């Protein structure tokens, strides 16, 4: 049965997701040497002209993916931000586009420092996602416990393990339906997000498939989703040791330094990540 990692890189004017994807694929290969990695991108020409493409087993043209461009304020540290165009649509099509029987779909801004995720292949579950998360700063992670104060449990769409099964197909089709009717679901679940967000759509799908309750339709990935916010900085990458500056609570523009070792980390400050992967 074919198994592999799948990255989706849809470049916008502000961030180079293709560059992030190449870096991410190299990290995957470093920690999981036998792993296969593929990419779906709307910038195939840019990828082939500028980067080593042999890192990817399959390069899938995503030029026909739906295009709904959201405007989003993206921070680069606490004191700098800009409004960027952000095309995050199409993640629900990963089920149809993946070349693998077992896939780990992940964001390009996820830094691999161990091989924990690779061990999920052959799982007895059809779908695995992260529900538990840990902000590397010590100010708590309440904001990602639920989609909103009065809403449902939050699941991260950053990493999704799935098999080519009927159960997973139904799940991804449901996410697609939610995306196509986002205004309705946004109001129904009292999320009040002006933009479509994959985490919310997948969380709604999990809730729906659990008969509008909590349940085990989707299993949990091992460990936790570790992350820094876009108000924090990635300071240094030294193999599997990562150094970060995380914002001090109630002290805007002041930071605490910390390091992680052997922990995979989701870096929400994409500009900070790109500065380290030149």
């Amino acid at each position: 049965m074919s198994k592999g990692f799948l990255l989706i890189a849809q470049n916008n004017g502000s961030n180079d997701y293709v560059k992030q994807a190449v870096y991410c694929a190299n990290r995957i290969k470093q920690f999981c040497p036998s792993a296969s990695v593929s990419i779906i991108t709307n910038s195939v020409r840019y990828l082939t002209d500028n980067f080593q493409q042999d890192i990817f087993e399959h390069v899938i043209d995503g030029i026909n993916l739906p295009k709904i461009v959201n405007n989003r304020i993206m921070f680069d540290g606490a004191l700098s931000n800009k409004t960027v165009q952000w095309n995050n649509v199409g993640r629900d099509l990963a089920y149809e586009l993946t070349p693998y029987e077992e896939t780990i779909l992940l964001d390009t801004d996820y830094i691999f420092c161990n091989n924990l995720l690779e061990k999920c292949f052959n799982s007895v579950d059809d779908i695995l996602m992260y529900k538990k998360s840990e902000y590397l700063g010590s100010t708590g992670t309440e904001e990602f416990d639920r989609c909103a104060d009065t809403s449902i449990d939050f699941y991260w769409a950053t990493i999704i393990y799935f098999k080519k099964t009927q159960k997973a197909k139904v799940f991804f089709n449901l996410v697609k339906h939610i995306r196509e009717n986002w205004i309705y679901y946004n109001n129904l679940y009292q999320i009040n997000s002006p933009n479509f967000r994959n985490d919310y759509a997948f969380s709604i799908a999990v809730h729906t498939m659990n008969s509008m309750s909590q349940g085990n339709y989707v299993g949990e990935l091992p460990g936790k989703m570790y992350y820094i916010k876009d108000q924090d900085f990635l300071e240094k990458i030294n193999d599997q040791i990562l150094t970060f500056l995380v914002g001090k609570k109630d002290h805007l523009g002041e930071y605490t330094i910390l390091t992680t070792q052997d922990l995979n980390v989701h870096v929400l400050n994409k500009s900070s990540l790109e500065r380290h992967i030149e």
Partner: protein
Amino acid sequence: MDEKLSKALEFANYTRTFEDQRRLLKERYFDSLVFFNSGGQFTVSKELISFVNLLLEKETASVLLDDNDNPVMIDNLQLFYDNIINLYFQSSNEYHTKLHELKTKRSIEKLVEYE
């Protein structure tokens, strides 16, 4: 700024960084305790070790519930036990060593090993 206050703030920064690093060491420890067998995902704990040890008194194979409540058939319970107890010792010893090292570091730079 008053010298005493300045030193107090410096120490506060040190203790904050120390607590962060200690917390992250613990997270690394928990990550390292995940064991995969027969498609199941098991977080090794004292309870799991004791339970499997108890099962071994009567069984050579058994069904165990994994972290996601999936029933997983473990054909070779003895091998499973050996693997989880090895993982537990290895991870716990490493956690102990790393935490001991951390406690000997007296500056923020050394705590985060920042050059």
